[in-house]
């Protein structure tokens, strides 16, 4: 396809437009987040440029009729929930993927059981869990009923990431350790885990972001103490204000920060791995 220069440019141009389509709303949101406040609404024209809504989000703005976003409680809950979910689903995902490294009867059934967790729409799962809680008299809390559903949702992602990592893992390294008399558990800690760590990091990142943003599963199961997405959803019903846009921009920046840290960690570990693996591959080939 290299000689199809015309088509190449056409598709390139299309891709640029496509990316503009993906980013358009963000740009508009970014502009409107600098709307004057508290009277300025979430629409054009901009009355006056100001950082009022950022101050409002962060709680520095003078009190007004617009209720501040429940950052302190809801955001703390969301972040704690995301971290707990990340840990549990990464551990479960790694264990399950480890089991899938040997063939066993019923592996197909287990595979689809786990993958089902990411396939079932959140609203169904939330409803089902709410029914179970209602029927068995379990309190619906963000750290209980919502948490287990977050794991149901993110564990399949962690599992698939780890499965892909193990598929590329050279098992002769583990066999070498066993043959040296090192028991399997210690081999996993000393050899396997350090080698799959970059994959574990990806799985953790997946689980963290999915859980942080999770909302349909949480809606029916978090009870009265809401998480951040539920708090935002709550504003749908009433009037929306540019403070949401300011918050969106701030969370985007935060996501970038997390991604950058992840990128740096990955960069370090692959560079170290490259130094260590240097030309091992080609020499074996």
């Amino acid at each position, binding site marked *: 396809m290299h000689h199809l220069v015309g088509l190449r440019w056409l598709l390139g141009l299309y891709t640029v437009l496509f990316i503009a389509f993906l980013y358009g709303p963000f740009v508009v949101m970014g502009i409107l987040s600098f709307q004057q406040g508290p009277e300025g609404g979430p629409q054009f024209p901009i009355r006056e440029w100001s950082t009022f809504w950022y101050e409002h989000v962060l709680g520095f703005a003078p009190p007004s009729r617009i209720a501040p976003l429940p950052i302190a409680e809801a955001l703390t809950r969301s972040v704690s929930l995301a971290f707990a979910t990340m840990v549990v689903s990464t551990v479960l995902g790694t264990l399950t993927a480890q089991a899938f490294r040997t063939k066993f009867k019923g592996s197909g059934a287990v595979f689809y059981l786990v993958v089902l967790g990411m396939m079932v729409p959140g609203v169904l799962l939330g409803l089902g869990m709410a029914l179970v809680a209602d029927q068995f008299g379990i309190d619906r809390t963000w750290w209980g009923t919502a948490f287990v559903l977050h794991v149901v949702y993110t564990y399949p992602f962690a599992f698939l990431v780890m499965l892909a990592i193990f598929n590329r893992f050279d098992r*002769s390294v583990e*066999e*070498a*350790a066993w043959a040296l008399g090192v028991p399997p558990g*210690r081999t996993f800690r*000393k050899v396997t885990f350090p080698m799959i760590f970059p994959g574990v990091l990806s799985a953790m990142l997946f689980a963290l972001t999915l859980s942080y943003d999770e909302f349909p599963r949480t809606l029916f199961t978090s009870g009265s103490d809401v998480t951040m997405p539920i708090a935002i959803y709550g504003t749908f019903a009433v009037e929306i204000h540019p403070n949401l846009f300011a918050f969106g921009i701030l969370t985007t920046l935060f996501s970038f920060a997390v991604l950058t840290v992840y990128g740096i960690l990955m960069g370090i570990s692959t560079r170290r*791995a490259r130094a*260590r693996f240097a030309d*091992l591959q080609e020499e074996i080939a």
Partner: protein
Amino acid sequence: MMELQGLTKSYDGVPAIADFSLDIRDDEYVTLLGPSGSGKSTLLRLIAGLERPDAGSIILDGTNLTGTPTHLRGLGFVQQKFGLFPHMSVRENIAFGLRYRQIDPVTDRNELDARVEDMLELVGLDGFGDRMVGEISGGQRQRVSLARTLICEPRICLLDEPLGALDANLRERMTIELQRIRSTLGVTFMHVTGNEAEALAMGDRMIVLNEGRAIQIDTPDTIFNHPGCVQAARFLNTYNILPGGMENGHFLSAGTRLAAPRGIGDAAHYVIRHDHIDIRAGGTEPREGFAHMEVEFIASEFLGARVIYFFRRPDGGVIEAERHLSVVRPKDIRRGETRVLHWPVDDVLFYDRDGDLLETQSSVLEAV
């Protein structure tokens, strides 16, 4: 001493190792020659405990190891791909087993360091201890792999094509190194290879493996001069194997009558080593006691001290002759020219329809 008794393993109904039995003595170098797919790696993995046998047992000094997991067997296993720990230095790789093994780990720092240092010296890696394993060459990796196994003082060290990943030059050097290291430590080595030269050069005893069965177990010398069966001769890669049958005291192979000694039984394979064949000018008359074949030259391969000549047989097949340049000068033959090949009938080996070696007068004489 290790006894393997009736080891059997199949994958999805396809047998990889079938009823394999062998006694391995202490302080012995056993080589195991087999083509790919002969089950040689499976055999090592069974002994190492990385695979579970369908039947049979592995007994080491009277203890049945068959159900014992790999890490409690006290055996060493050197892999073809080395399997070094990429996130550790050479020193850490070598110390790893000694330090973290379940049985009798060495926790004393000084002792650990001293033993690693000794081992580095033994395998010729002094001064490389602090390099990462990605920073050393293929041959050095091979040595690390060997060193970290030997430092654990295994009772038997299994080597799975240990030289397979090295280039030819390095391979020859490591052959000598391996023998030196083994005799220094007095550990039994079981060395699996697909390379006949390696198997012949290194072993005190040699096993030829075919389709999961040992087809010959003997000294390399005996196996080389008298392959016990036609498959063994084929794996040695130094025999011409002509199919055919006996007719009126001659061996008839695709239209050529070849001289055969008297009293030979019902031979189905006529086997002559490459270096027993003499090349004569076209039209040379047959001689008493020599077999004789008119052939057409195809090509030759110059291998330094020796040359291998390829000829077309009358039936279209290829026959190879090898000459050592210390014995003869290289022959200048042009493609398509006719030559006569000559060889002493006494040097010919005959195998029956089942591939078993037939006794000839000369072989009987030699045995006496």
